[in-house]
């Protein structure tokens, strides 16, 4: 497998609408981020270039990034060339209302998705994680539309995208994105039944939909063409009687990485092309670079057999 990162690791210092150095951030009432080792992109710096610098600095192989940081096809090609010059692979990110009703899908969502697929292909991506961009109104727990109806819609909508994916040579990877269970994701992938649709397996997200991560990994593995590496600490009993799920650096939580990585290595269609992108996004008052570097070190030290290009820890 290849080791990469998701841009979400830096969400609180990089996303224009989230970065914690905006004046608006102070009104959320969160603690100040003291003693930080990293700042986000400067005013004259393109976030995508900043990310490439991070990748090179960290010695990683692939970057998960969506279309929001690519303005047009010329821009995408320039980014592709810089990634190639640094021997980096782009794993695209595609936000879709994947369980949209047919009329909504035909009224612009399909066209938007096709445009994004072409843009990601121009940027050099041959894989792209496809995520539900309406997780508040469409997810496992929503009753209207029912989960069965949502899955049927997802099959229909994904199927409509397969011809353009084939045309541009880009495989979509349906991600369990804090919304659906892998059992449901697998249902969709089997229903579409195309070599251009697989799974981007997120190791932590099953927890959010009350699904055991290892059970989910076993179900996802035969279709997994990408992965996001994420850990959570599960605190079942608390003073309020409400369980808490907390971010942790990789290896500090309750996700069984040793077992999951073995399952992916043995069961994924082609582990040699599978990019496992670390997605560790601590709360905004924490130092994301410290968390990320600790996670990278842990992966390199603990699982060298799964990441042959990574060498030992820094």
């Amino acid at each position, binding site marked *: 497998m290849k080791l990469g990162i998701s841009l*979400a690791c830096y969400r609180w210092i990089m996303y224009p609408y989230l970065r914690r150095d905006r004046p608006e951030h102070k009104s959320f009432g969160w603690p100040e981020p003291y003693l930080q080792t990293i700042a986000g992109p400067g005013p004259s710096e393109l976030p995508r270039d900043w990310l490439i610098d991070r990748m090179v600095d960290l010695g990683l192989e692939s970057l998960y990034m969506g279309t929001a940081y690519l303005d047009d096809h010329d821009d995408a090609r320039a980014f592709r060339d810089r990634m190639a010059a640094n021997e980096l692979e782009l794993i695209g990110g595609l936000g879709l209302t994947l369980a949209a009703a047919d009329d909504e899908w035909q009224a612009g969502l399909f066209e938007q998705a096709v445009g994004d697929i072409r843009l990601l292909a121009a940027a050099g991506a041959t894989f792209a994680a496809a995520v539900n961009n309406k*997780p*508040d109104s469409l*997810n*496992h*727990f929503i009753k209207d539309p029912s989960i069965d109806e949502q899955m049927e819609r997802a099959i229909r909508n994904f199927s409509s995208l397969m011809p353009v994916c084939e045309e541009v040579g880009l495989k979509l990877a349906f991600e369990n*994105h*804090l*919304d659906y269970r892998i059992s449901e994701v697998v249902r969709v992938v089997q229903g579409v039944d195309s070599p251009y649709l697989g799974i981007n397996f997120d190791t932590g997200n*099953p*927890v*959010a*939909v*009350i*699904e*055991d*991560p290892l059970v989910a990994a076993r179900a996802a593995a035969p279709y997994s063409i990408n992965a996001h590496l994420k850990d*959570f600490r*599960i605190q*079942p*009993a*608390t*003073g*309020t*009687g*409400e*369980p*808490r*799920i*907390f*971010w942790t650096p990789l290896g500090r939580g*309750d996700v069984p990485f040793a077992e999951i990585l073995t399952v992916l290595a043995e069961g994924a269609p082609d582990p040699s092309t599978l990019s496992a992108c670390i997605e560790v*996004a601590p*709360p905004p008052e924490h130092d994301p670079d410290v968390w990320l570097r600790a996670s990278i070190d842990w992966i390199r030290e603990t699982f060298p057999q799964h990441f042959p290009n990574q060498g030992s820890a820094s």
Partner: protein
Amino acid sequence: MKLGLSQATYRWVCYPWLRFDVPEFRYSERRLPYFMSVDPPDVSGPPVDWLVDRVLEHDLTSLYMEAGWLSDDGISSSFKSRMQANDLAFIGSCSANLAATEEEWGDPTYPLPAEARERVVYRSTSGDHGWTGGSQFEVLVRAMELAAAAGGRIINVVHDVPARHNHFTKEPPIDRQIERMIRNFRTLAPVAESLSIVMATEAHMDYRCADYLAVMQAVDSPWLRHCFDFANPITVIEDPLDAVKLVAPYTVVTHIKDMHARPMTHLGEPRFFHAPIGSGDVPIEAILEVLQSEAPDPDSLEHCLEIVPTSEYNPEAWLNASLDWLRTNCAKFWN
């Protein structure tokens, strides 16, 4: 099936060490409730009578309550009389480290010697609560004796160190924890038989129902059965409907509650919140269907409402809403 009450519904109102109207509460940084529609009990002792009042007020048929609160002979005999006079079932509660080592568990000789009965005492103050002076085995035996003496036929035996040992902790790993629970429950089975009281395991924000199923199957005693909690499987990432299908054949009582899932949040950390029954994401009706068809004696199955909103909410309002929902939407299940 029948509807009962779990004491935990009123935890922020009546537990001596948690109630919102003691000064210590404010140090907890929890929010105060400002619009409470039920008065807290007298602060002088365990809220036993007060809880019976709540059961009667809501026209329920059972009460799930801490057996240690019946340590006083006067309280116990009065409680028993009142429960019998009102035809109410008492389901006891006791707790210990179920995954204790053999040494921590203690000498499993039963009956306990007289000096142990003097030594093992239950305390309940605004600052502290629980059993003291005995091994894990002795504590549970004393609680079972108290529950049986007060007329209880079922007692939940709950794990009380979930922060130290649970499904996710690694030292020892879960398989070893299950082995310890099997060994420990085996020592209690003869005690339960002697007292004619059925012990019930409960997934109590610690272990999965699948873990407890393994324990019950290995112990293989009619004196070890299960209390199914409708929402607690969520806390250990176990689907509640899948869970009940595993343990329904062993289920002799339940804690019925609901929880709302919020898988995606601004921080990216999933959240699960208490909810009035019918307002959350637990498939209540589907679970009741499973229990109706798979539980050993559905006619006598008590579903004790355990509605535990956080401290700033009015539990009485949540309980009323939950009862209304259950009596309206699940009427076919109630005797």
